[in-house]
């Protein structure tokens, strides 16, 4: 038995950590959290993954662009920011604080406040919706692993590694 364990461990070391991660549910969930849709692609549901990747990332990128990256700032949106972290990229981006220059410190004038772009709040809304939708897609990934029979079978030509 010890020999089996040692040979299995050495086999894992030989294959590397990356292929191992790709086949575990935790690796797929982490991947899906950081890049929405990628977990589905890794689990073999390529069409679903590509559509999720385009839809959620498109919403996230558009939202970040419209909100001037304020949606990734805990300073501007202290509570809603955590909704946006449903997409891991929001959390990663917040470490760089790209919107810190936009903060009005001290007594901001009314004129300056009115300079905030019209689409700013809409952009933040899009990012936070993308975060919630990505949580949903991560739950779908987990659910498909728990009971694969509930999910559709992959289309022709799609490989299913589950």
């Amino acid at each position, binding site marked *: 038995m010890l020999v089996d364990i040692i040979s299995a461990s050495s086999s894992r070391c030989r294959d590397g950590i990356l292929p191992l991660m790709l086949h575990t549910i935790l690796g797929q969930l982490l991947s899906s959290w950081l890049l929405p849709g990628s977990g589905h692609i890794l689990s073999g549901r390529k069409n679903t993954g590509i559509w*999720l990747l385009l*839809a959620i990332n498109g919403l996230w990128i558009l939202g970040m662009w419209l909100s001037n990256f304020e949606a990734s700032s805990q300073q501007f949106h202290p509570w809603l920011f955590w909704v946006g972290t449903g997409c891991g990229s929001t959390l990663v981006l917040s470490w760089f604080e790209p919107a810190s220059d936009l903060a009005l410190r001290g007594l901001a004038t009314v004129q300056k406040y009115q300079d905030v772009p019209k*689409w700013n709040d809409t952009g933040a809304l*899009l990012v936070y*919706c993308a975060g919630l939708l990505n949580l949903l897609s991560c739950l779908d990934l987990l659910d498909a692993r728990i009971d694969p*029979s509930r999910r559709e079978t992959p289309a022709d030509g799609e490989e299913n590694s589950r």
Partner: protein
Amino acid sequence: MSDLAAFLLLTLVISIVHVLVTRTARSPQSVRRETTRYFLSAAGGMLLLGLIIEVISELFQ
């Protein structure tokens, strides 16, 4: 008009994700057809409801 465009975009993405994560082995329709049906019923229903509320509020003013 721009608000309407943002609303429609958001509803479209929510429709796509909803259909993709709730599909089962017994889903009869194609993804595209199911997404279109969901989008039209969700966005159309909400717009219709908004229109009815607008009309009622105009009537009572």
